[in-house]
C-alpha cells in the first residue's frame, strides 16, 4: 500500500513540474547584440513575445515583468558630514554587488503584479537586485546608503522602473521598449521575463543581450590594456604632433 502510494507520488512529481509551466514564453528581441561603436548614443531594445500554452486561458489577469540587468560590480557608497566646519567623507559602505544598469518594465504597478516573497526569490525589484551584506555593524543606517545608491543611479538613468510600460494583448502577446543609455558598460546583459498571476510567478524565461565594443573602440580598449606602454607613448606622440601642427598652421596663417 505504502509502496503504491510512493509510486503514485513519483509519477505525480514530474506531472506537477509540467503543470507549473503550462504557460511558456516565446521571446523576440529587436537585437540580441548591441555593438558599441564610436558613434554609439544609446540604443532602444524592443522586447516582444507571446505566451505559449496548450490549456485554456485561466481567468486570472496575466502580468508580465521584463528586467534587463547589466554587469555587476562592488560599489563603495560614501557619505559626507560636517566636521570642523567643512564637508568631508566620514562614512562609507561597501555594496557587494550593484549592477551598472538595471531596468524593470511591468504591465502594472510592481507592488500588485509581484508579491514580496516572489520578489525576494527572484530578485526582481531594484531594491532586491542590489546585494549588500558587508555593511559595517557600527552603522545603524546602512539602508540609507543602499537607498542613496539607488537614488543616484535612478537620477542618471542607470536604474529605471517602468511601471505599466509592458503592453499585454489578449493575455498572449506582450511587448515593451527599453532604452539603453549612452553610458553603457560592456558585458552580458541578462534579460529576464516573468509571467505572474496574482503576484505569483507562473513562468520565467531568461536570455542574454551581448553588449560589446567593436571596431576602433575595441582596438583602443585592448591596446590600453595589453600594450599600456605603447598606448601611453602613442598618446604622447599624438599630443606633441597636434601641438606642433597647430603651431605651424598658425604661423603659416599669420605669414600669409
Amino acid at each position, binding site marked *: 500500500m505504502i509502496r503504491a502510494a510512493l509510486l503514485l507520488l513519483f509519477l505525480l512529481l514530474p506531472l506537477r513540474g509540467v503543470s507549473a509551466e503550462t504557460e511558456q514564453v516565446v521571446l523576440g528581441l529587436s537585437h540580441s547584440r548591441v555593438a*558599441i*561603436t*564610436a*558613434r*554609439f*548614443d*544609446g540604443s532602444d531594445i524592443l522586447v516582444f513575445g507571446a505566451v505559449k500554452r496548450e490549456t485554456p486561458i485561466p481567468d486570472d489577469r496575466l502580468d508580465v515583468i521584463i528586467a534587463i540587468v547589466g554587469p555587476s*560590480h*562592488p*560599489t*563603495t*557608497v*560614501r*557619505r*559626507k*558630514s560636517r566636521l570642523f*566646519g*567643512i*564637508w*568631508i*567623507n566620514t562614512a562609507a559602505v561597501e555594496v557587494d554587488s*550593484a549592477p*551598472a544598469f538595471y531596468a524593470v518594465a511591468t504591465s502594472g504597478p510592481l507592488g500588485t503584479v509581484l508579491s514580496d516573497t516572489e520578489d525576494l526569490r527572484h530578485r526582481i525589484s531594484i531594491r532586491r537586485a542590489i546585494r549588500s551584506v558587508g555593511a559595517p555593524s557600527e552603522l545603524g543606517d546602512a539602508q540609507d*546608503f543602499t537607498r*542613496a*545608491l539607488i*537614488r*543616484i*543611479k535612478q537620477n542618471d538613468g542607470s536604474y529605471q522602473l517602468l511601471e505599466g510600460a509592458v503592453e499585454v494583448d489578449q493575455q498572449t502577446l506582450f511587448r515593451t521598449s527599453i532604452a539603453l543609455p*549612452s*553610458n*553603457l*558598460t*560592456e558585458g552580458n546583459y541578462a534579460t529576464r521575463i516573468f509571467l505572474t498571476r496574482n503576484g505569483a510567478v507562473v513562468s520565467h524565461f531568461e536570455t542574454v543581450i551581448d553588449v560589446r*565594443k567593436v571596431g*576602433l*573602440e*575595441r582596438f*583602443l*580598449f585592448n591596446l*590600453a*590594456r595589453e600594450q*599600456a*606602454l605603447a*598606448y*601611453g*607613448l*602613442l*598618446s*604622447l606622440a*599624438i*599630443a*606633441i604632433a*597636434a*601641438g*606642433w*601642427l*597647430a*603651431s605651424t598652421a*598658425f604661423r603659416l596663417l599669420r605669414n600669409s
Partner: protein
Amino acid sequence: MQIYLPIAEVSVNAFLLLGLGGIVGILSGIFGVGGGFLITPLLFFVGIPPAVAVATSANQIVASSFSALLAHLKRKTVDLKMGTVLLAGGLIGSAIGVVVFNYLKALGQVDLLVRLCYVVFLGVIGALMLVESLRAIRRARRAGGPLKKRKQRNWVHALPFKMRFRVSGLYISVIPPMLVGLAVGLLAAIMGVGGGFIMVPAMIYILGMPTKVVVGTSLFQIIFVAAFTTLLHAITNHTVDLPLAVFLLVGGVIGAQIGTGIGVKLKAEHLRVLLALLVLLVCGKIALELLLQPSELYSIAEEGANA
C-alpha cells in the same frame, strides 16, 4: 555629434569637448599654466569618471603646452637653461611627492588633503599676486612714466654656484631655482597638476625673472611633468582615454595659439592681475564646495568597473 569614449565608457558631445579644450588652451597660452586645475573639474562636470579625467587631462596639457611653447620659442621668450634647472629640481620633487601621496592614500582622506592644499596655495598665491600687481599698476599710473624696476637684489643673490641666465637677464645661484623646482614638483605630484600656477608666481617673485620669460619657461617645465604623469597613468591605471584626449587637444592646441597672441598684447601687470583673479576664482569654488552643504551627501565609486 555624440561620441562614445572607449575607456571612460560614456558618450559625450564632441563639440562640447572641443570647446572645453579650446577655453583651457587659451588660458594656457596667456598665462603659462597647464590648465590641469581647470580642465579636470570641468571633465567631472561632463560626466567623465575622475580617474579618466585626471589621466587624460595630463595628456591634453602636454599638447596645449607644447603648442604654446613653440609660439614662445619663436618669440625667444623661453629661458631653456633656467627651465632645465627647474625641471631637474622638479623631477626630484615629484618623485618624493609620489611617495608622500601614496603614504597619505594609505592613511585615507587624501582627497580632502588635496582640496585643502588647493584652497591654501591658490588662496595665498592669488591674494599676494593680486595685491602686488594692483600696486604695480597704480604706481605706473601715478608716475606716468616707465615702470620702476622691481628690487632685483635679495637673499637669492647672496648664494654660491652662480650661473648666468642670459634670457632672463639674471646672474644668480642655481640653488634657488632648484629649490623652487623641487617644491613645485612635490606639490604638483600631491595635487595632481602640472604646477604652473605655483611655478609662475615663484619665478616672478622669488627668482625675479621678467614676466614675459616666465610664461614660456613654465610651459617648458610643465610639458615634461605632464608627459611623465600621462605615462604613469597609462601604465599603472589604464585610464588615458585617447579619443577624449584627441578632442580636447584639438581644441586645446588651437586655443593655446590664440592665447599666446593675446598674452603678448597684454601688459605684464595686467597679465598678473588676471592670473591672480583666475587663481582666486578656482580657490573660491573649491572652498565653497568644502563649506556649503552639498545637495547630495552621498557619492558612489564603482570598483572594478575599469578592471
